[in-house]
């Protein structure tokens, strides 16, 4: 059975490793601020006790005040799973550091988020629209995108 990590304990382990950043672990996920998301992800994959080496799913959701980026992670060795989220409050041009250098599987999923939500990922290895064509204006999966022709 894939055990879900106990979030407060995970929060303790991470804040011991990275003293400066603040993480919330209230509900069923870990909430991290976008700036130090990259550092947290590095720790998650490098710590031998956690070792979240399998990025199952990376997606986004457009809420009224922020765009939420959701990481579903798995550890193949320990057979555990975790959900880590970050919220981009600036909805005009949301920006975030890309995690391609940590998980190669994130490349296509980040391109999809850029294409359908407009979230720009810094130092991504080839950030282009994946599904729509270059001249398409607007980001379809945003709630304010009118679905007409």
């Amino acid at each position: 059975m894939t055990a879900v990590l106990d979030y407060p304990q995970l929060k303790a382990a991470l804040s011991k490793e990275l003293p400066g950043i603040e993480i919330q672990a209230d509900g069923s996920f870990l909430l991290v601020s976008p700036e130090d998301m990259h550092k947290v992800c590095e720790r998650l994959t490098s710590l031998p006790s956690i070792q979240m080496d399998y990025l199952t799913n990376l997606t986004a959701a457009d809420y009224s005040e922020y765009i939420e980026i959701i990481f579903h992670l798995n550890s193949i060795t320990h057979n555990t799973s975790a959900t880590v989220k970050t919220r981009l409050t600036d909805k005009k041009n949301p920006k975030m550091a890309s995690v391609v250098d940590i998980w190669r599987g994130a490349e296509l999923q980040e391109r999809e988020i850029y294409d359908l939500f407009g979230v720009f990922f810094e130092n991504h290895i080839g950030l282009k629209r994946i599904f729509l064509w270059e001249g398409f204006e607007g980001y379809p999966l945003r709630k304010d995108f009118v679905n007409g022709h």
Partner: protein
Amino acid sequence: MELNFEKPLSLLTLDEIDQQEGGVIQSFRTGHTSPYPDPADWLNGEEPPPGVFITSVEKVLNWSRHYSLWPVMFGLACCAIEMMCMAASRWDLARFGMDIFRASPRQADLMIVAGTLTWKMAPWLKRIYDQMPEPKWVLAMGACGTSGGLFRDSYSVVPGFNLVVPVDVYVPGCPPRPEALMRAIMDIHEKIDKTRILKR
């Protein structure tokens, strides 16, 4: 609609090529809003004049086109699987002489467009249609062909193939059963038998 590059293709960076293609798709989308009229001139043709020689030549030529209709592979989505099932052993399409699925449009007569057509794919469909030599027919397979089907109000789906190419036969169903597709191909055979070679 041609992708006319000023510089040769190999010197262009990939982003410039993408920009060019994006521009083509965008202009294609705005340019194609009204559907092509369905070619139905064979319907109201009056009986051919009594000249024996003309009708028998026409009969032979139509017979040869009827039995040697080579389809071009244009499988887009789920309908393509049903098209393959029809070409497989149970509903063998080869009985009608159509077993060679030509990969290159130059040698094909019939284009079975099977699946959902998106605006990004539309210019390619038009180009493949233009590349096919003259006596050619189009069979729009599935609900996506007639009206965009399940995805009609999506931002990236062409609502009906007749916006892009003149369609001869529409096949309802999502996906239509192989028997329905076979029936549509027989409709095309009927159409071929009735066409007048020498336009009067």
